């Protein structure tokens, strides 16, 4: 073997490790900062690992009471408590993802088995996703904050607004993730041969029975992957939450943003703690479903 061929694998691994280090570094930095006390945040030269690790940031963030008095200048600033934001994020993301999953799977079944919506439905549905969210944020804002209250006042005499509500944001999250659910579940359902349902029908099974005992077990893992995927999308969503909610409803990304505009300096410690809390579960979930992502992404363009 020539020297060149011998060294090549080492060169490859060196490059890959270098990129891996780049990839992991910001996350490492964040986690490390979350354990640092205030004096270490902007120390120079920077401390790669906390010299005095502390749980203070986490304690601050997770406390039940209004905190940050010692840090906040504004007496009414309740911004640093993670629990309301955590609750809002979990509730809205879970329910919206679930609703989207159920509705989308139902439709995907109809499209797969009956060709509902025409031949190109699956591609048409993705075009919805291509519109930049800012372009729909403005219309939705006007819709939620003006048109709906206006209409309900006229019709029912009661002023109902969807602005800054869990329902408002949740509905929007459902609608924006539906295209993905339909796309992904379509591919999973297409993999279940229709002859299985024919066979069941011939043996006397009704449609509900067949779906329950034959189709669902075979797409169950697909449903889990889809759910996790859209959950991650909703969890990370920032723009719509920023524009359509707060202060009544606050999701975690919006909460994190509040720190950026903190009055006096930046509170890197608690921010890092919140960032860690937001990120770690999602990364773990993502790693779980990554095998399926790898499988799906060549779009059948090279060879099926």
């Amino acid at each position, binding site marked *: 073997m020539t020297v060149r061929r011998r060294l090549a694998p080492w060169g490859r691994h060196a490059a890959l490790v270098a990129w891996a280090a780049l990839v992991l570094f910001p996350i490492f930095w964040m986690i490390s900062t979350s354990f640092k006390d205030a004096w270490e945040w902007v120390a120079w030269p920077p401390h790669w690992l906390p010299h005095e690790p502390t749980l203070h940031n986490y304690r601050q963030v997770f406390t039940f009471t209004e905190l940050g008095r010692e840090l906040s200048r504004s007496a009414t600033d309740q911004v640093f408590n993670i629990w309301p934001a955590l609750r809002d994020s979990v509730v809205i993301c879970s329910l919206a993802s679930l609703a989207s999953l159920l509705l989308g799977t139902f439709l995907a079944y109809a499209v797969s088995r009956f060709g509902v919506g025409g031949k190109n439905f699956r591609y048409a549905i993705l075009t919805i996703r291509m519109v930049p969210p800012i372009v729909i944020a403005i219309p939705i804002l006007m819709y939620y904050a003006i048109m709906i209250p206006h209409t309900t006042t006229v019709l029912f005499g009661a002023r109902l607004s969807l602005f800054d509500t869990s329902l408002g944001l949740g509905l929007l999250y459902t609608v924006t993730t539906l295209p993905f659910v339909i796309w992904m579940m379509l591919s999973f359902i297409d993999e279940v041969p229709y002859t299985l349902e024919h066979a069941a029908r011939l043996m006397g099974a009704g449609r509900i029975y067949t779906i329950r005992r034959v189709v669902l077990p075979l797409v169950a893992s697909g449903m889990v992957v889809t759910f996790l995927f859209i959950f991650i999308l909703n969890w990370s969503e920032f723009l719509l939450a920023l524009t359509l909610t707060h202060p009544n409803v606050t999701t975690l990304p919006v909460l994190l943003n509040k720190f950026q505009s903190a009055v006096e300096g930046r509170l890197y410690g608690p921010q890092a703690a919140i960032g860690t809390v937001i990120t770690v579960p999602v990364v773990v979930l993502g790693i779980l479903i990554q095998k399926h992502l790898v499988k799906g*992404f060549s779009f059948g363009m090279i060879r099926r």
Partner: protein
Amino acid sequence: MADAHAPTRTAVVPAPARRPRRLAAWLAQERVFRLVPFVLVEGLFLLLLAIPFGLTVYISLLKWRASRPFEQAHFEGLGNYADVLADAEFWWALGRTFYFAAVAVSLELLIGFVLAMLVARTVRGTRVYTTVFLVPMMVVPVVVGYNFSMIYVDSGPLNQLLAPVAALLGVDPRIRWLSHPVAAQWAIILADVWQWTSLTFLIFLSGFAALPRPLVNAARVMGASPWQIFWRVQLPLLKPVIVIAVVIRSMEALKIFDQSVLLTFGGPGNSTQTVAFYLWRQVWQFNKFSFGAAASMLLLVIFAALIYAGIYLLVRQRSVALAEGRG
């Protein structure tokens, strides 16, 4: 039914609880299954997307600021659109957005391609590398923005690593990167690259994995060198995948918003204001509702054109692939 059977068959234990289902009932049920989900989903889209869209068009034709109540707004016609088109800041933001997208996507494609190629060739640790490389994609973009702001801060690790260089140049190493317009722009680009190279890596990795081995073997038998095999066999086969990666990433990169808000809030000055950020400011900071509505309609038109171009490219790739007997 039992009496129609030949006497040699054993009788099945009857199940009296079941009503006999008729074909007509089955077909009726099928109609429900077809229509209900379609109606529900389309209804949701209509209610939540189509109507607001119409509303926005209407508002874009009014002259309305938050300072006055809705009822007082008067019809203005296309004046708002003219205002938007005349606003230099709009064009700057648009141009800047394309610039960010172009640079970021190019880097992502390049690095993602190289990474995928390297990983496809390694024997050991493929799984580990892939898992690690996919992590950035899963980090909440807001957090990414925050992380990078931490790194770029004047006493951050970036400056520490560059300290020897600064010493060489006789400059104070504690540089406030985000206060310099060009550096701030690159900060946003690099944050995007950090996060989304994962996606291009993923796409190319799948592409490499799906390359048919027999073609490469045939080329080797015909005496092609590794370089020739790369250029003449593998790269052309990967073209559809490359197109997909370009289209998907470009569409997303044009929407950069989160980083603009978090890292720099459009600054310093307006130098990192993307068009999404610009739009957001008009409505949420300056409360220029009609102006914002008109701007978002214009943006929609621009994006619709881009989307059509993108779809056209994708569909053409697909039909080329089909014609060549693949997929």
